[in-house]
């Protein structure tokens, strides 16, 4: 017998927190898949650290979402008992690890955004979100540093690493637009000073990317056609497989404590 999905009352604030929590959990989960399989032991350590930071962020955001919702949900119910259509993360973070270049480019795109985003969110008038942002900003700043150094080395390393890094950039580029999109519900939160408008960050994000790409002798794509859908639960095929693994215990053994 499989456990049914929980229902979540997605008020703008709950939805807001869920989206950020899902981003952090799914990306943290992806990175945790590397543990034991990285190109060098030093990178096993680094990627696990980033994964742990992200899982930590996810837990705080889920707890906040559960509190904001005020029903009987908690971090684990939100993580383990929502189906693929109920997940609200960016399409970018659910993309498979691929090779090391693909993982690091995905991390670079996301961290360059998250660093700016959480720094701006430190001014949120919601004190819990501001506190989560302050902690996440420091973590994201390091994630960005780590990823940038690798992008430079892969881009300006060997012919093979250059080709792989460029291919990863070209492949993942179309998933970056979603980071800056805002819907009506979120706009209400922005006006209330609870959330910030990610659209305002795009210029600086692009600047970070250009600086690093140019040092790495890599080129950013010109194509601005972007994939959308993650924020409303219209995902790529990859997320379902990830969730079937992530949720397997809770789905197989309903309602138990572990």
């Amino acid at each position, binding site marked *: 017998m499989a456990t049914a999905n929980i229902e979540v009352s997605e008020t703008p604030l709950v939805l807001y927190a869920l989206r950020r929590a899902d981003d952090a959990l799914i990306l943290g989960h992806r990175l945790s898949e590397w543990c*034991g*399989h990285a190109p060098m032991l030093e990178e096993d350590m680094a990627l*696990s650290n980033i994964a742990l930071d992200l899982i930590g962020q996810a837990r705080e955001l889920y707890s906040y979402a559960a509190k904001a919702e005020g029903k009987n949900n908690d971090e684990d119910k939100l993580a383990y008992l929502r189906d693929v259509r109920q997940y609200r993360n960016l399409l970018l973070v659910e993309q498979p690890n691929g090779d090391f270049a693909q993982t690091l480019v995905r991390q670079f795109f996301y961290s360059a955004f998250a660093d700016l985003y959480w720094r701006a969110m430190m001014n949120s008038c919601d004190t819990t979100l501001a506190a989560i942002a302050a902690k996440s900003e420091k973590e994201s700043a390091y994630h960005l540093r780590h990823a940038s150094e690798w992008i430079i080395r892969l881009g300006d*390393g060997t012919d093979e690493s250059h080709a792989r890094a460029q291919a990863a950039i070209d492949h993942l580029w179309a998933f970056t637009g979603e980071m800056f999109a805002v819907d009506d519900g979120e706009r209400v939160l922005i006006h209330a000073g609870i959330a910030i408008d990610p659209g305002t960050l795009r210029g600086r994000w692009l600047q970070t990317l250009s600086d690093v790409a140019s040092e790495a002798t890599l080129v950013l794509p010109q194509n601005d056609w972007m994939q959308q859908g993650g924020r409303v639960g219209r995902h790529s095929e990859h997320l379902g497989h990830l969730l079937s693994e*992530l949720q397997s215990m809770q789905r197989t053994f309903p309602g138990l404590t572990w």
Partner: protein
Amino acid sequence: MYTQALNTAETDDRGLEDAGRAAQFQARIDAEERIEPNDWMPAAYRKTLTRQISQHAHSEIVGMLPEGNWITRAPSLRRKAALLAKVQDECGHGLYLYAAAETLGTSREELVDAMLAGKAKYSSIFNYPTLTWADIGTIGWLVDGAAIMNQIPLCRCSYGPYARAMIRVCKEESFHQRQGYEIMLTLCRGSEEQKAMAQDALNRWWWPVLMMFGPPDSTSQHSDTSTKWKIKRFSNDELRQKFVDATVPQAQYLGLTIPDPGMTQDADGHWRYSEIDWTEFKQVLAGNGPCNRDRIAARRKAHAEGAWVREAAASYAAKRAHRQTAQAAE
């Protein structure tokens, strides 16, 4: 233990070396002095330690795989974070140990290549599969418990870098066993299905864990040298007995049954276990355990697929050094 194949220590070849230096060396060991990397040491001491420390390092790294198998399926976010942190610690421990081994003059790359080529051993325990979540609890409780039993005396090993690495490892590992026991406790206080899962895991892991301590003293001929050099301070059977005595009450507290119907408690309070199946142990060490091939294949794959990344980093470093030299020349 993590270095259980070491019971084939190098025979002492000091006869071929400067007898005076060898005597001085032994006198330092007897006086509980620590030996440091640049100190003179008998070739057999160097070789034995290189092998033991690198085996220990390989065990930590291969040991990431059975537990890593459950990181993506951990049943709660709290458990997921704890397991990932634990497996990451094991990677760190492997790293400290490779560094300690390198002080004896063999590079990490060379040591790893030997492991990937199947020429170096690692602990037999990691060749068993993790089938259920209870296996993660059992590994933390028993495998880490056994490892700590072995590693605490190694903190006083005569070779300084190894002893220092062990101190750091023991400090970090203190949470691992507790993490495992907490998982077991949760299962044993849970549903019938969960209790059965816990018992099943104990049934499968108990005997392989006892084998971790290595062959019985009666058959291991070379421990003498390791003992004389103060690399090894307790015999395999001494440590195994200590472990069993510590573990039985923990199992009783959980309400689990040790899968050894012949086990009895003697007058001194020691729990006497039945004969261990040493044929299985030998087969697993020889490469015929349930997961030996998978483990090596996974490490080889990570190593091979990481080659282009390591090359890229090296190539970038060379380019940058070249640019800096060129700039300085201007």
